[in-house]
């Protein structure tokens, strides 16, 4: 019933999740968000993109990044949006978490996505994952769980406790 592009059906509403009290914050492609009030951070339709969830449980701060490309160096344009890139996005997310009271040595990471969706494009998914691992290692943030690769799209939610709920296109769901 939207007024634009009649050829598109209803977008799936995300209200089937229990998104009650603390609320949820949607993170778009090439965006990141930090939450300090127990909100659930969600991002949908991860294909080759990679989602990085970071949490400092003691400080009750968590943040989610949905990055599209491995490195700022790949960009032919100066990065106006660091969250578009895995490396710049992780650096920005860590910095924003710190400013919200997180401590760098308490942060832990969970990552998802980086699928190889198409043979037509070079393997951007695996490169995204690789870069995420490198950047997190360089920042001294341990990756405690991951669900990456394969050829399947994913939708993720980062809970305030750091748990990353990953739902695959086929409906299979697991919590990292």
């Amino acid at each position: 019933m939207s007024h634009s592009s009649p050829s598109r059906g209803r977008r799936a509403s995300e209200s089937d999740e229990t998104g009650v009290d603390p609320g949820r914050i949607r993170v778009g492609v090439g965006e990141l968000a930090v939450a300090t009030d127990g909100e659930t951070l969600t991002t949908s339709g991860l294909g080759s993109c990679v989602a990085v969830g970071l949490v400092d449980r003691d400080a009750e701060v968590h943040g989610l990044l949905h990055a599209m490309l491995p490195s700022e160096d790949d960009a032919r344009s100066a990065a106006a949006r660091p969250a578009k890139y895995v490396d710049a996005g992780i650096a920005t997310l860590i910095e924003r978490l710190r400013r919200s009271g997180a401590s760098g040595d308490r942060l832990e990471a969970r990552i998802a996505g980086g699928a190889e969706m198409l043979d037509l494009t070079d393997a951007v998914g695996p490169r995204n994952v690789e870069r995420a691992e490198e950047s997190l290692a360089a920042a001294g943030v341990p990756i405690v769980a991951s669900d990456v690769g394969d050829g399947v799209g994913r939708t993720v939610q980062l809970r305030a406790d750091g748990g990353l709920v990953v739902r695959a296109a086929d409906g299979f769901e697991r919590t990292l």
Partner: protein
Amino acid sequence: MRVDVRALGACNRLSERGAKQAADALSELTGTDLAVEVTGASVASGEDLAEAFAGRESIGVSVGLRGGLEGEAVLAFDADNVDALLSLLPGGQSMGHSAVSEVGNIALGGFLDGWANYLGTAIDMTPPRYFEADGAAVLPDGALAGDGVFLFESRLDATTTDLDFSIYMLPDSGQFRDLIVGKTAAAAAPGTEAAAAGGSDGDVGGPAVPYESLSTFASLAKRGSANAADNIAMMTGLETTVDVSRLRFVPLADVPAEVGVEPHAGTVFELQGKPSGYLAILFEESSAATIAEAMLPMEPDEPLGDMAENALCELGNVMTSGFIDGWANVLGTSIAHSPPEFVHDIGSATISPLVAKLSQRQDYGFVIDAAIRTEGVEARCDVYALPDERELADALAQLSEP
């Protein structure tokens, strides 16, 4: 007159920012979360718009624009939702039209603030006018008259209730031209991200295209669709039409949201030539199954199994050829396409690698809204044409040279 594609991009960002302000205002007013889902500039003929909006009943609130930007802006929503809206407003039920007009006024005020502040000028709004409209009559005056107008549209989605809004803005074209070659083009000059991209190329002018060529490009989509329909008819022996309602110019980063998280099936092609790029034809699952079944001599064992996949790949082949042959003919270039790659997954996930690849070089892509009708079966699909922006601009620029 030449339009810098990046300047058009800056207008798009303004529109995006405006839509965000409008969404915030509406969220506060209604106590419902609203998010900006899609923002884009579209180029379409009046006839196509009329077709695209056929059969819909809308409630609209319109304001006229004077001063820094002239034209008209409309906030529209589905007529069925008027009660839901009124129930969310304090005292809304008893206020009816007045409440709706004020909602429109507030949202459109927010939408225009971003533009006015950016332009460093004031945009005067006329008092809001409430109206009910059938079909494309909801669009700003003049949208249906021309054969290639710029229409900015944003969709605001409510996350919890059935309360979605669209904002359409049709700037007066003369003044809008000045705007995109004037102030906005200046903003795309050195220092900004887009300009840095152009600069590293050494192509000082950037991807500038003649204003008229943009509507030429819109008619390309139309022409391509006629070819695509002929090809399908030839392949299947079924009488087929492909209708293209319009061509939208959308930020690449919005494309995944545009496709949405519903499962989609379809085909993806790589294009080689001038322009190169990608083309994706995506159906919602049920549409994919319907069209595949119509093409197959017998009912397939499973709705989207191997047989359907083959059918959709073939369909993709002939549609893609139809589109790109039309483009190549008009542009006077040659464009080839790769074999189809079948995709079946979360819609936005299927297209994300294409967006990632192209976004290294550019910020915008095109979406062609299309519907295929074959032997009484109708299947809607979206065709995402993601050409290399510079190559396309070059080709379009050559079109206008004597």
